[in-house]
């Protein structure tokens, strides 16, 4: 690592303005009170469904469960052909081939977590092998975790280098790249300042997406954290011209929550990000609630869990 690169990286990160915690939380709460009704709500629910990375990351995952999940991602509501499909299926690397096979040419992506998810506690060689494995199995997107220990102890060069190396490991033989999402595990980063720093760090290292959490640590995604990250991607595009996506993950369970996030995206970064290519929800139970709300809007009466799948 050239010392000049390190110095300029540190300079940029140290030059970031601090986050006004009280103002940030008030702003996020304020945006959460917007009332989205009728046709706007219908539109928002369909958009949210199309942004879901339908996720299963359990030790008990089986090929059968992954196939069922992939089928659900393609046709979330089999009784209604107008229901949009989800954006992607998110699984562990060893399940990528099964998910890929089930999704076929549906156009849905397979996202794979990698780099010793969720803790990230392994040597770089193991993390890169994990990543190459997933890419070779056909993953379209790689969700990597940063080394929070290194980040918190100030060793940001190590974090930077790992992201760069993982990005290189995402390369396919034909010259294309699997999309790289970088997970910060914001629940472990302690402060909003750190979230802002980590966002810039990851984007400068080449992340295509920045993602809040693994879903394995509480608190997972929150509105204020996502707001900080949205501001970061907005400012980063203003500065460099490169657009980076945002993915809140974990803890988003209701349509109401999802719509709050969409309102925030629209207010902070605008239309450009209101698209599954640039904003995703990492979720599993959220999709069922979106489907129940969708059924409610279409039929005029409340639906129930008997009318969606058990995952």
């Amino acid at each position: 690592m050239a010392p000049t690169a390190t110095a300029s990286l540190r300079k940029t990160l140290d030059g970031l303005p601090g986050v006004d915690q009280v103002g940030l939380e008030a702003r996020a709460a304020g945006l959460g009170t917007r009332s989205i009704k009728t046709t706007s709500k219908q539109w928002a629910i369909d958009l949210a469904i199309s942004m879901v990375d339908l996720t299963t990351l359990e030790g008990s995952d089986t090929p059968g469960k992954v196939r069922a999940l992939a089928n659900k991602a393609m046709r979330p509501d089999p009784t209604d052909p107008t229901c949009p499909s989800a954006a992607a299926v998110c699984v562990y690397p060893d399940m990528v081939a099964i998910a890929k096979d089930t999704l076929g040419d549906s156009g849905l992506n397979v996202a794979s977590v990698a780099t010793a998810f969720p803790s990230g506690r392994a040597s770089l060689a193991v993390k890169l092998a994990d990543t190459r494995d997933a890419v070779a199995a056909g993953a379209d997107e790689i969700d990597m975790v940063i080394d929070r220990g290194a980040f918190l102890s100030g060793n940001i060069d190590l974090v930077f280098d790992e992201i760069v190396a993982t990005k290189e490991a995402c390369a396919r033989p034909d010259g294309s790249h699997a999309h790289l999402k970088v997970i910060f595990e914001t629940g472990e980063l302690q402060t909003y300042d750190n979230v802002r720093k980590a966002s810039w760090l990851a984007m400068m290292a080449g992340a295509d997406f920045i993602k809040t959490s693994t879903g394995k640590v509480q608190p997972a995604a929150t509105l204020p954290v996502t707001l900080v990250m949205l501001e970061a991607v907005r400012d980063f595009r203003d500065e460099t011209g490169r657009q980076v996506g945002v993915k809140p993950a974990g803890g988003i369970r209701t349509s109401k929550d999802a719509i709050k996030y969409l309102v925030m995206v629209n207010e902070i970064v605008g239309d450009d990000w209101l698209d599954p290519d640039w904003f995703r929800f990492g979720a599993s139970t959220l999709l069922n609630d979106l489907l129940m709300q969708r059924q409610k809007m279409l039929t005029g009466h409340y639906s129930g869990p008997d009318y969606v799948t058990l995952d």
Partner: protein
Amino acid sequence: MTRIDVRKTHKLYINGAFPRSESGRTYEALDAKGDFIANMAKASRKDARDAVLAARKAFGGWSTRTPYNRGQVIYRIAEVMEGRRDQFIAEILAGGTPPKRVAPCVDASIDRVVWYAGWADKYVQVLGNANAVSGPFFNLSTPEPTGVVAIIAPEAPLLGLVSVIAPAIATGNTVVVIATENHPVPAVTLAEIMATSDVPAGVVNILTGSAAEIAPWLASHMDVNGIDLAGVTDPALATELEVAAAENLKRVLRAPSGPADWLAEPTLARLEAFVETKTVWHPIGV
């Protein structure tokens, strides 16, 4: 020195907590002379939805408790009611019930809860059966709870209310109750009793407000399994609710025809109303 009244704004009872209506609406409960008693929360369809969610969440735990334990919990309700006897008497008096009928009504209400508490571990023996079949099998029918039951409570201030809630929860159902719009204060006190006795959160949810407004949403809710129309006096509304309930084949208990006599000794009818009979076959061994 005269003391200034503590003016009350009562709230709903959902999932073991006392939230205001999501809609922020309130209405005034008036006494028989038309004077102000208290502000009541006026529940909206979303409060009803939240209540159903809470009731569904509570159903698994409540329905699988032993009948004996459910009986103990319901008996505990009666114990706490007994301690609030004077408060109930004052509230029902303010609602306009003739004074000499008030105390007997409160006593009957408490006794009614004890009565159903006693039945909690006995109704299975009476409603269930060992059926004789033409083969070497035990053939056993047992009643199981229906699920989430919506109840439109009758006008009779406290007695009517406990007479519809107690049997439904005694058999393991969880309930969403719309209290009578005109005399809702005893229902709020009952909610406070539910919160401070051993009834798990979500087993009983009590909404105040307009039944005509909320009941159709409960009747058409796909996650409600039964509806008790005890307090529906308008035949047009009753028909509307039954039609909506047909959508997911809810069990419907119609309002009694003519004025109901809640003081009369109850029968097993209400315990039988919200149970489903399960029949199992088992080979007879040696």
